[in-house]
């Protein structure tokens, strides 16, 4: 409606400029770009806090932060990175932009709802940051009672924020699922859908079913706070473990909300840059869905030393091992996809391959945490910190960055500098692994997490980790400057710079307002590459 005035054949960036037109747009591409910009800003903010407290950890003594500041910084870091970056990240930014293009649709099923989720996200983000900063909150992203309750009203506000963010996430998930059911182009059967979309589908299911628990927790906290009915607070006769159950009932599925979209991106990039059909497409597609389902029944593995019964611990351990299987299947399938391919080590592929490396370590370290006897030793040490950074940063964020490079020409119509992109990818790889691998060793040697002060014997590990972060930061900024710089000095992107087969590459770069001038008709699978004639 907005753009018919100017005609449908102008690219979406140019249809109507001006900040107001962006703020009221219902175009999935513009909304995706606004999400992308917001998420990257939060990523830089969250990263800055990490940088500061890692510098503080250079020695066991005080560098420049007090213990309270250190605690507030890791809280800010964790909350921002989890709730504002990796959980919404890939679906909200890249999913929004790419999903309608990949199924050959004009937009999402509910464009206005899509804009609503963006505003809910901004609102939630503002409340979350304000509550921590104004409340000097330092309860960590896990918000365990009763410590967190002493931080009120910060925790109540945090839950209000989580409520809005959760709603935003539910609406996005719902929108995606409905769109995939109803708006596929002619010929786009379920099994012709790119794997990125299967990942979006699985993520959507988890968003819709897990996130309401946040709202329930909020209501219970409000009841406790205003009516003095003990639910979580032991001084009122409540049970602090109940809060952990609620928290992980949401947050374990959330870890898969975080990583499954990364799987989707990795599949796209690996296929495109080896010019190969993904090996075992159906196994890869189903395994995303399997993870989404099993992910709901394993939350108790975060509470093996928290005072659960032996029976509960054993059942949760047993079930957790099953989540490892779909993850392993994917890794093997991606590896097999490379076989007999035509592999091009362009920047996105470098990210996809380091994703594979990091995710292998992230998955393997997850399995050891599910071994009950060993987890008693490893729980709440740096080992766990490293495990989830290998998955959340090393896998999800690395895939996200790879995806941004991969779709950058489509999103902006510009090519970034390939050499600089590759250098940045290598710096990210080296920096990330230097930062986090030593944390595995330090953790299994018994170094607890969230420690401002530590034993002298761990200093060398902390220092390597800090140096690693410096390298990682340089890599990330190089990548960012390279991407942003392409607006000015990048060459014009062709419609399909990588020779990929999925539908988004049939649209112009950048796409016109309604994506395709003619509705595409799909006659083959997403990775129907030709082979070399003998």
């Amino acid at each position, binding site marked *: 409606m907005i753009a018919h005035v100017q005609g449908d054949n102008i690219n979406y960036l140019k249809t109507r400029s001006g900040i107001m037109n962006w703020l009221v747009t219902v175009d999935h591409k513009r909304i995706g770009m606004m999400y992308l910009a917001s998420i990257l800003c939060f990523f830089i903010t969250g990263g800055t806090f990490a940088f500061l407290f890692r510098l503080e950890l250079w020695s066991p003594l005080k560098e420049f932060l007090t*213990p309270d500041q250190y*605690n507030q910084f890791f809280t800010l870091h964790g909350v921002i990175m989890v709730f504002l970056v990796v959980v919404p990240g890939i679906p909200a930014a890249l999913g929004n932009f790419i999903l309608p293009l990949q199924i050959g649709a004009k937009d999402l099923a509910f464009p206005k709802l899509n804009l609503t989720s963006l505003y809910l996200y901004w609102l939630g983000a503002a409340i979350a940051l304000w509550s921590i900063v104004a409340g000097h909150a330092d309860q*960590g992203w896990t918000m*365990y*009672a*009763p410590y967190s309750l*002493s931080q009120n009203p910060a925790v109540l506000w945090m839950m209000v924020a989580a409520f809005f963010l959760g709603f935003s996430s539910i609406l996005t998930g719902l929108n995606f699922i409905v769109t995939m059911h109803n708006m596929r182009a002619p010929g786009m059967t379920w099994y012709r859908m790119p794997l990125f979309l299967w990942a979006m589908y699985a993520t959507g299911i988890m968003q819709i079913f897990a996130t309401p628990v946040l709202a329930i927790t909020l209501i219970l906290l409000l009841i406790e706070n205003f009516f003095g009915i003990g639910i979580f607070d*032991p001084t009122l*006769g409540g049970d*602090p473990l109940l809060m952990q159950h609620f928290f992980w009932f949401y947050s374990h599925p959330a870890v898969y909300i975080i990583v499954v979209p990364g799987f989707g991106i990795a599949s796209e990039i690996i296929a495109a840059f*080896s*010019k*190969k*059909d993904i*090996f*075992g497409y*159906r196994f890869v597609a189903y395994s995303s869905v399997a993870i989404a389902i099993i992910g709901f029944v394993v939350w108790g593995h975060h509470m093996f*030393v928290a*005072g659960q019964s*032996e029976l509960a611990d*054993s059942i949760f*351990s*047993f079930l957790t*091992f099953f989540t490892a*299987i779909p993850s392993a*299947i994917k890794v*093997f*399938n991606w*590896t*097999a996809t*490379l*076989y*007999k*391919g*035509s*592999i*091009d*080590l362009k920047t996105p592929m470098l990210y996809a*391959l380091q994703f*594979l*490396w990091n995710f292998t*370590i992230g998955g*393997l*370290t997850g*399995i050891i945490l599910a*071994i*009950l*006897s*060993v*987890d*008693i*030793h490893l729980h*709440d040490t740096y080992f766990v910190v490293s495990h989830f950074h290998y998955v959340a940063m090393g896998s999800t964020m690395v895939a996200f960055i790879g995806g941004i490079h991969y779709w950058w020409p489509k999103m902006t119509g510009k090519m970034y500098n390939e050499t600089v992109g590759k250098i940045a990818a290598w710096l990210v790889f080296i920096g990330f692994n230097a930062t986090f691998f030593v944390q595995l*060793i330090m953790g*299994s040697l*018994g170094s607890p997490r*969230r420690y*401002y002060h530590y034993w002298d014997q761990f200093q060398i590990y902390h220092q390597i980790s800090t140096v690693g972060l410096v390298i990682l930061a340089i890599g990330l900024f190089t990548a960012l400057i390279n991407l942003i710089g392409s607006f000015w000095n990048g060459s014009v992107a062709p419609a399909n710079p990588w020779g990929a087969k999925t539908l988004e590459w049939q649209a112009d770069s950048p796409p016109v307002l309604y994506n395709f001038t003619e509705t595409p008709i799909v006659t083959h699978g997403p990775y129907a590459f030709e*082979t*070399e004639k003998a």
Partner: protein
Amino acid sequence: MDNSKTFWLPEKASTFVDIVDPAFNLYLYISYFFFFLIIILVTVFTIKYLRRRPDQLATAQITHNLTLELGWTIIPLIVVMGLFFIGMKGYLHMRVAPAGYMQVNVKGQKWAWSFEYPSGAVNDTLVVPVNTPVKLALTSRDVLHSFFIPAFRTKADVIPNRWHALWFQATRTGVFPVECTQYCGTNHSYMLTAVKVVEADAYSEWLATASDPGKGKTPEQFGAILYTKRGCSACHSIDGSKAVGPSWKGLFGRQENCGAGGMVMVDEAYIRESMLSPTAKVVMGYQPVMPVFQGVLSDREVVALISYIKTLK
């Protein structure tokens, strides 16, 4: 046996080492195997099938291979089920204390530990005899904490209003660090203590003196001991420096501004009230985080602490 730390694991000092370390090491080899398998395959494929001409295509499109895929579903499944059983078996052993254990009650509070023996002894480090099963019953006076002894490979969360248990059997004498591993606020990383493992006769000797700590001491001397043993030192300094709580230096006789409570002159009654119901009057500029010592300190201990505070001019 070599008890020193290895590349991955800390020093060894309990029977649980024989449960946790072999499982950890077995898994380490399994993960080395899978990690290198993947990385080598990826590297080899990447080098071998690298695109050399811009228009080069794949040499084959292999969409799937059911045998292979079932293989890499079923083999990992068998491996993880094995790991599950190893883990559960070890864990059940680690959770159920054998008959004939001795028990110590452990209380965590921000940011100190206290250990209470059946004989009435109370101490700020844990002293136990070697080669004897010891069961710890843990509880917290305020927020969650977690009791972790890396050298013993065991830990358990410490929960208010609830007793959580942990047991171990030390295999050699020595002093081993104890850390709080559940985030509990400002000084979480200073919530450290130690387990001191001694021979049986040294233990009995220690217990006898510890059970009657005030014996042969003046109240002032006894108060000085309680200052550290009861964890007051975590929040109160005696040299005038401000910490989580006000310093005790020059406290007695001082005028304190207690906000709504008005100006208060610090005397015996006020100090007693501060210990037994700390929130009755909260000193301006401080948070009401002091634990309640009602029912924790005996009358004799309260008197000793007051006498000690009086000496800090």
